[in-house]
C-alpha cells in the first residue's frame, strides 16, 4: 500500500529494504561512484570545497612561514643621524612651554626637552645632533608634519587618539589635565570622593569646571566659579573653598608666588602632552621614547618641571 506521503523518505527507505531498489544509496560511492547522496553521505560539491580549503590553507601556511623581508629603514632617523639636524615643529606662542622673545630666541619646557633629547642622542652619535626649530601655526602642525616640513612636533601637543592614522605619539611627558588642589594643611583629601559635600572652586568654563559639574549631582559639591584659576586658588588659601580643580601650570604659577596649597591625587581628567612623529618614523619614535623614559627615571624631567613650571 502506498506510504503516508508525510512520512520521511529516509524512514520509508529503512522500512522498504525489500523493495525494488537496485542500489545501496547509503554508500558514498553508490550510483557509479558519484559523491552525490544525502543522509550522512557526501554532497555534490564537497570535494571541490575541500580542495579549495586545502589550497587556501597551503597558501596561508606558505605566506605565514615565508621569511619576511627586513623592515624598511626609518629614513627620517637615518637622515637625522647622518646630518645631525633634527627638525622640530613648534608654535612658539604658549608659555611656559614655548615662546620667543623680540629677538626670536626660543625658550620654554618644550625647547629644553627637545635640546635635552638632542644632547643625549649626540652622546651616542658620531655627528652631534642639534635641533632646528620650524615655526607653524598650531592648527597647521599636523599637516606640516605630514608634508615633511619637519620631523616631529614638540609644542605642548595634547594626545589625540583620532590622529593616530596620520601620526605616531611618544610616551607622555606631562599631564595638562585638572588636578585636585587643597590647602597645605589638608591631610584628609586624597581623591575627589573625599570632597563629597564640600565647596569646590573652579575657573568658569574650564575642564575642571566641566568635571565638577559632571560629578556635582552625585558628590553634592558646592560649586563656586571664578574668572581665573588664581582667583579660585586665592579663595582656597583663605578658606572660602575646600579644594580647587585646576591644571598644574596654574597651580605651579600660584604656588610659586603665594604658596600655602598643594596638589593631591591623580589627574581628574588626563590631558597628556606628547611628541608626534610621522608613522613611517618608528626608529625616531623609539629613540625619543628612550630619552623621555630615561629622563623620568633619573629625575631630569622633574628638574625641567621645576625650572619651567615652578621657578619662572
Amino acid at each position: 500500500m502506498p506510504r503516508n506521503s508525510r512520512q520521511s523518505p529516509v524512514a520509508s527507505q529503512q522500512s522498504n529494504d525489500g523493495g525494488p531498489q537496485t542500489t545501496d544509496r547509503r554508500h558514498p560511492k553508490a550510483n557509479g561512484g558519484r559523491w552525490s547522496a544525502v543522509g550522512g553521505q557526501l554532497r555534490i560539491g564537497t570535494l571541490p570545497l575541500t580542495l579549495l580549503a586545502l589550497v587556501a590553507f597551503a597558501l596561508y601556511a606558505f605566506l605565514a612561514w615565508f621569511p619576511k623581508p627586513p623592515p624598511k629603514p626609518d629614513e627620517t632617523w637615518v637622515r637625522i643621524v647622518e646630518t645631525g639636524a633634527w627638525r622640530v615643529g613648534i608654535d612658539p606662542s604658549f608659555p611656559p612651554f614655548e615662546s620667543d622673545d623680540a629677538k626670536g630666541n626660543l625658550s620654554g619646557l618644550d625647547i629644553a626637552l627637545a635640546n635635552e633629547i638632542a644632547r643625549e642622542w649626540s652622546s651616542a652619535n658620531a655627528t652631534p645632533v642639534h635641533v632646528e626649530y620650524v615655526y607653524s601655526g598650531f592648527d597647521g602642525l599636523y599637516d606640516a608634519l605630514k608634508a615633511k616640513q619637519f620631523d616631529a612636533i614638540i609644542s605642548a601637543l595634547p594626545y589625540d587618539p583620532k590622529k593616530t592614522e596620520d601620526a605616531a605619539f611618544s610616551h607622555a611627558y606631562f599631564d595638562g589635565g585638572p588636578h585636585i588642589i587643597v590647602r597645605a594643611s589638608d591631610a584628609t583629601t586624597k581623591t575627589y570622593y573625599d570632597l563629597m559635600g564640600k565647596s569646590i572652586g573652579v575657573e568658569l568654563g574650564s575642564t575642571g569646571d566641566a568635571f565638577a559639574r559632571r560629578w556635582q549631582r552625585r558628590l553634592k559639591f558646592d560649586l563656586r566659579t571664578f574668572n581665573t584659576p588664581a582667583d579660585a586658588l586665592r579663595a582656597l588659601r583663605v578658606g572660602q573653598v575646600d579644594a580647587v580643580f585646576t591644571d598644574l601650570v596654574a597651580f605651579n604659577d600660584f604656588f610659586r608666588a603665594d604658596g600655602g596649597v598643594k596638589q593631591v591625587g591623580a589627574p581628574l581628567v588626563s590631558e597628556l602632552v606628547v611628541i608626534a612623529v610621522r608613522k613611517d618614523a618608528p626608529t625616531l619614535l623609539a629613540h625619543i621614547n628612550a630619552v623621555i623614559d630615561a629622563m623620568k627615571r633619573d629625575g631630569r624631567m622633574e628638574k625641567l618641571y621645576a625650572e619651567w613650571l615652578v621657578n619662572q
Partner: protein
Amino acid sequence: MRILTQLRKFCQLPPLGTGDKWQVTRDVSRVTWHVARGLRLLALFALLYALAAPPPILVTLGPQQIVRTTNPKVGVHTRVTDEVEEWKIKKNFEMVREMGATWVVEYFPWEYIEFDENQFDWGHADLVVDHARRQGLRVIARLGFVPRWARPKESVTSFLDEVRYPAFAHFAAEFARHFAGRVEQIVIWNEPNLNFEWGYRGVDPAGYARMLQAVYPRVKQAEPSVQILAGALAPTLAPPGTVDAMNDLDYLQQMYDAGAKDYFDALAIHAYGWTAPADEAPSSKRVNFRRAELLREIMVKNGDADKRAFITEGGWNDHPRWTKAVHPAERITHTLRAYELCKSWAWIDACALWAFRYPFPAQTYLDYFSFVTPEFDPKPIYWEVQKYAAK
C-alpha cells in the same frame, strides 16, 4: 537530462523505470519532504536572523514642546546637516530647547536636496525641520552649496555662475514652497565677501545683488510669507584690494549701490567678538560683537531702517592656543552679555551664535566654539546659558 538525474539522486529517488507502480507516489512524497525540510530551514534562519539582528531604533517626533526662556532672542547655529542618525537630530534640538534657546539657524545644502536637476529629496531636510519645530524652535534656513550639475567641472561648491542664478532661484522657491509655514526665514548664501565662499573668484557685491534679484521674486511668488535674509557677511578688516576678502561694511554699502535694497527683507549678520568683550564700542577698525551696529547704521543710511536684522552666526572661542580666542570664563561672560545686548536691540529679532554642536570633532580651534561636545556632553557654557535663560 543530467541535471534531472542529479536532482533525482539528491532526492534519493531511484532511476526512472526501476520502480514499482507506486514509484510516482513515492517520488512526489520525497520531493514534498525535501521542500518541507527546505522551508523549515528557511524558517529557522529567519528566526535566528530576527533574534540576532538589533531591533530597529524607534524615533518619534514626540509631543509638541515649547521653549521656556526669559530672552526669546537667544539662538544657536546648529550643525545637523551631516548628522545621519535621527535620534541625534532629535537630541540636538531637545538640548537646544532645554538650554533656553528659541532660534536655530541650520544649513540646507542645495546639492543634498536637488542632487539631480529638478529632482528634490526632502527626506533629511524634513527630519531636521520637523524635529526642530516639534521642540518649539524657529528655524532659519541657510541655503548654498552648488550641486555638480549646476557648476563647471573642477569648480568648488561655492562657485555659482550667473547663468545658473535662475536654477538657484528655482531651488530656493521650491524650498520656500515645501517648508511653507515651517521655515520663516531663508538666508541667501554665506559670507559672499570672502573669496573662498564666492567660488575662489574676486568677491563681487554687485554679483551678489544680482543673485538676490534673481532669487527674491521667485521665492516671494512661491511663498509670500517667507523672509529673505541677505548678507551673512564675514566680519573682516581686509583693506581695499585684498584678494581673499572685502571689508564687510564696504561690501554692504556696495550691495546697496548695486540695487540690492528691494530684494531682501532683513539682514543676516555675523557678529564675532574675537578677543573683545561684548560691550566694546563698535569701530570700523575693530572686529567685535557690536560691529553689528555699524551694519545697522548702513541699513538706516540706505533707507532700510524699517527692516529687521538677525544674528545668524557669532560668539567667542576659548581654544587655549588660537590667537583670536579668549579664556573660557571670558567666553561665557561675553556670550551672556551678547544675548542681553540683543534683547535690548529693538532692530534684532534673533541672536543665533556659532555653534551648538558639531556631529564630529573638527580637530581644530573650531571645536572651541561649540556649546556641547559631539558626544552630547554639555560644556559649562551650556549650563550658564541655561541658567541665564531661566532667570
